[in-house]
């Protein structure tokens, strides 16, 4: 850490939970990291009132007494960026949890420090610049094969400007060793630091016209988001927010996943840690952990570090975006972060806004989501493009979406994937409510789907939406007067949308063949259901009896089509469609 000066040492004058105030620290700045107490706990300055400085402390303050020292570090909260991030598990302030375990055993002790990036490990660096080259912030200095599938591009830190004086030879170096020296004497290493609360600079923002594919039918088809887009996943407890976030981490088409477990369960993290190394990246076949960074601050870890954890996660995400990768940051759950803000604000005795949340909640949330986007990366040379997609879970109290965190997030997020307790109760997973959810990206993405998606994708999606909408209207009638009051054509709509719900929208995250649905399977499955509906509709118009149509055995084949794996799906689909046509012809013949 930066050198500390004696003049900046103050003394603790008040301790209230995670909030500590101190006097005698002239010159300390907002956002500066301070070391609090004899245990040197890490804290961040969040208010300065004359001689009194208020800090939120990222560790438990129990046992601390008044008069203990507080020392400024002269620097804001920064993260270390460089080789060694992938596959690692950090806490909210980027201390590697395995290293903490070595220091203090199974329980997290206090006042521990451990470097985010291993200083002893060497990485094979292959330079891409030579003496005399001009370099600026964002330029690629060289590469390191970080994991089996991901090559880390070592970038000149933002703000760099100059000409290369010397470069090391290709070979193994440690992260903090100089690899490039500029003519002005600046030495660059593979590692750089960046303050987490500031967005890393990038070039122009690009259009949201490429999809962030998730392998989840309801999301990819009905509510797709773009690479660089944002979505929020609100839902009461037990509706499957975490399963959605974890499923996305496994199957989405991003190159890098940063998973932020903010104020959530420890056992869930144990699950991820035991599962991810064994799972394969569906695109590369390598271990999923090799493209994943975990930032974990469980609910019983100090509350102030939740605030740090989301920023730490998104900053690591931006770093890989700057290298030209598509990055997805999963924040589970943003409500716990908002609650941490509320707790600190209340200890500062700030005037509360809605439901006790601080009035700057909306500003913080929008700043956070605005760090997403698809951009031209900073730096010269080959024009790299990278993206950062943000998916934030929200945990509304009582499952009531009218609360401030959900509503504030809705104003900035590009898509709402609303999870519904009544769907979860009947084990309809993912419990995404199709009437309530929306995506603002769907039109922008139409072009891509027309070009790259299965044939008729956009039309079929519209058909499905229309059917589900009609179904919702008819359900209201049924609730009033019973199904007998409906015409056969209307009852057919109910049956068809039931098939859409059960065969198409439901997806079993624990089934090998169905956890991931390729675009081809998603499109094919929907097409098949709709073909069935249209054939029945035609027969009905020709005077066929609805009950006979619904007894057709092909219905069961259709329902089971869902279990057909994505590989070789087309053949299976053609069989079922042929069956439908044959039966329709037979029925028409009678």
């Amino acid at each position, binding site marked *: 850490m930066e050198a500390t000066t004696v003049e900046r040492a103050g003394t603790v004058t008040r301790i209230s939970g995670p909030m500590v105030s101190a006097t005698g620290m002239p010159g300390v700045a907002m956002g500066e990291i301070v070391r609090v107490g004899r245990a040197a706990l890490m804290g961040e300055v969040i208010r300065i009132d004359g001689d009194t400085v208020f800090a939120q402390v990222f560790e438990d303050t129990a046992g601390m007494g008044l008069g203990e020292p507080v020392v400024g570090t002269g620097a804001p909260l920064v993260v270390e960026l460089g080789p060694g991030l992938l596959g690692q598990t950090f806490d909210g302030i980027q201390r590697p949890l395995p290293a903490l375990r070595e220091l203090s055993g199974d329980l997290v002790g206090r006042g521990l420090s451990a470097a985010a990036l291993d200083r002893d490990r060497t990485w094979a660096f292959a330079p891409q610049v030579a003496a005399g080259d001009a370099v600026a912030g964002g330029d690629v200095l060289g590469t390191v094969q970080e994991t089996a599938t991901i090559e880390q591009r070592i970038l000149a830190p933002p703000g760099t400007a100059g000409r290369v004086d010397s470069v090391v030879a290709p070979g193994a170096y440690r992260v903090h060793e100089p690899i490039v020296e500029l003519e002005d004497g600046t030495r660059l290493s593979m590692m750089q630091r960046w303050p987490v609360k500031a967005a890393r600079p990038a070039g122009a923002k690009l259009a949201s016209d490429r999809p962030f594919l998730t392998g989840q039918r309801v999301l990819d088809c009905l509510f797709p988001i773009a690479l660089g887009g944002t979505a929020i996943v609100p839902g009461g407890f037990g509706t499957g927010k975490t399963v959605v976030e974890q499923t996305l981490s496994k199957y989405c088409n991003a190159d890098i996943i940063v998973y932020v477990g903010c104020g959530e369960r420890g056992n869930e993290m144990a699950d991820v*840690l035991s599962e991810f190394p064994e799972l394969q990246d569906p695109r590369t076949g390598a271990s999923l952990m090799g493209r994943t960074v975990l930032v974990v601050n469980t609910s019983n870890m100090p509350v102030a570090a939740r605030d740090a954890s989301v920023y730490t996660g998104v900053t690591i995400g931006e770093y890989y975006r700057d290298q030209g990768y598509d990055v997805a940051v999963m924040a589970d759950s943003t409500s716990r972060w908002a609650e941490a803000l509320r707790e600190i604000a209340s200890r500062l005795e700030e005037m509360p806004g809605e439901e006790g949340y601080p009035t700057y909640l909306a500003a913080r949330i929008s700043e956070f989501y605005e760090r997403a986007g698809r951009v031209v990366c900073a730096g010269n040379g080959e024009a790299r493009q990278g993206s950062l997609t943000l998916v934030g879970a929200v945990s509304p109290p009582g499952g009531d979406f009218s609360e401030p965190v959900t509503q504030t997030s809705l104003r900035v997020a590009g898509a709402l994937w609303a999870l519904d307790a009544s769907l979860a109760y009947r084990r309809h997973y993912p419990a995404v409510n199709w009437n309530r959810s929306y995506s603002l990206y769907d039109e922008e993405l139409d072009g891509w789907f027309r070009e790259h998606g299965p044939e008729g994708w956009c039309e079929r999606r519209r058909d499905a939406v229309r059917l589900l909408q009609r179904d919702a209207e008819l359900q209201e009638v*049924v609730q009033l007067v019973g199904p007998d009051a409906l015409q056969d054509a209307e009852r057919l709509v109910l049956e068809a949308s039931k098939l859409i719900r059960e065969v198409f929208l439901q997806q079993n995250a624990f089934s090998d063949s169905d956890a991931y649905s390729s675009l081809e399977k998603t499109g094919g499955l929907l097409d098949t259901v709709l073909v069935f509906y249209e054939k029945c509709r035609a027969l009905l118009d020709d005077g066929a009896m609805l009950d006979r149509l619904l007894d057709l055995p092909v219905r069961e084949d259709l329902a089971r089509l869902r279990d057909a794996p994505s590989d070789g799906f087309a053949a299976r689909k053609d069989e079922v469609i042929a069956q439908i046509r044959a039966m329709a012809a037979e029925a028409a013949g009678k």
Partner: protein
Amino acid sequence: MESMETKPSGGGGARDLLHRQYWDLSYVSGPLVFLKDGHRFATGAILDLVLGDGAVRQGQVLETSTTHAVVQVLQGTQGVDIERTSVSLRADAARLGVSRDMIGRRFNGLGEAIDGLPPVLPDEELDIMGAAINPVARDKPRDFIETGLSCIDGFNTLVRGQKLPIFFGAGLPANRLARHIVRHAATKSDAEEFVVVFGAMGITEREAAFFLRSFGESGQGARVVAFINKANDPAIERLFTPRCALTAAEYLAFHHGFQVLVVLTDMTNYCEALRQVSSAREEIPGRRGYPGYMYTDLSSIYERAGRLRGNRGSVTQIPMVSMPDDDITHPIPDLTGYITEGQIVMSRALHRQGLFPPVDVLPSLSRLMNNGIGEGLTRADHRDLANQLYACYAHGRDIRKLMSIVGEDALGDLDRKYLQFAQEFESQLIGQGDVRRTIDETLGLGWRLLALIPKEELTRINKDLIDRYYCEIMEDGVPSPFVG
């Protein structure tokens, strides 16, 4: 203002000589006293308050500043005066002396023996606040715990290291359900290594007697550690009771390799005590007056369940949460549900029908079910079967609702089958009474119930499994008791 003196107080003893006494109370309100000077004690310290009449109470320092210190008094502030009450340091933190000899003993809510036997000789003095388990040190909860109840084993499987609360309304037999789980979980496990830690906050004498008696009956009488704060004990003590219980549980699990099942009842009383302290501190209240940090506070209890890598022991938690007015969105069950790995929800409607256990499986959930079921753990058909039964039952319940609007005559044949299914599901599968079912019996009964529904409807189950189980029963000609 130097108010310290060393005048001997009635009780005497070494502690009084070691620690200076101070007479500097400035303010008394609710469960809190304020001291004039915050420099004397560190946050979290445990103090002795000696009242004018020589009575000693304990307090914990919550907050310190140059002008004051806030102390919560565990036994309440009735009778505390500013003039004569003195404070002195008792310990730097709330600690519990732990030892293997705690098994079979009974303590009050602060961990002091109340069974008339001499105090336990501690092996270690542990801080009851505990510390967060490093997430990378956690091992995945697994190992199915067979409770003998179909509603749990079949649909909301409990695994070792899980925290699974029971949500219940007033008047529902939650204690009987807890007794059932504890009793059967105990018989199934290797009795040698099974311990129940019971933490009771604000329960009545009658409830306390019920639990202690039933733990005794289960043949595990000697394997219970009980921490009991009764309804007429000091409310603030309740903030310490679950933490004492969990400190003992962690010690027995992780130092001695026991499989520990912790039953905490009633968490609602705990939260009320938390609210009491918060309002006395004049904090900004959150929903229904509960403090904004209640989620964080509850998680510091619930998160103390789990398993550690390379350790044989486990801590499994069953917190009991009463839902005021049967409202599952009330802050206490709501925040609990966000932290725990699922919930068992009791239903008044089923209870009125005379069914036991009256568990509504639709809102109930076990998030860790997948870790404990399937081939090699329970049976290969478990997940699909449970999903299918869920879907059929949920549909049957919808039909039942519809029927109440449009009448039975308006229902089609298939609808009637679902209706009957829902009925049988509740009375046969859920309402099993006090009998104990193996997981095979539960699954077998599930398949027999499915015979009520036409095979083509069972699209949640893998076809191979249907061929194997559904047909088998029909072809064998084993008459399903519910058909024809």
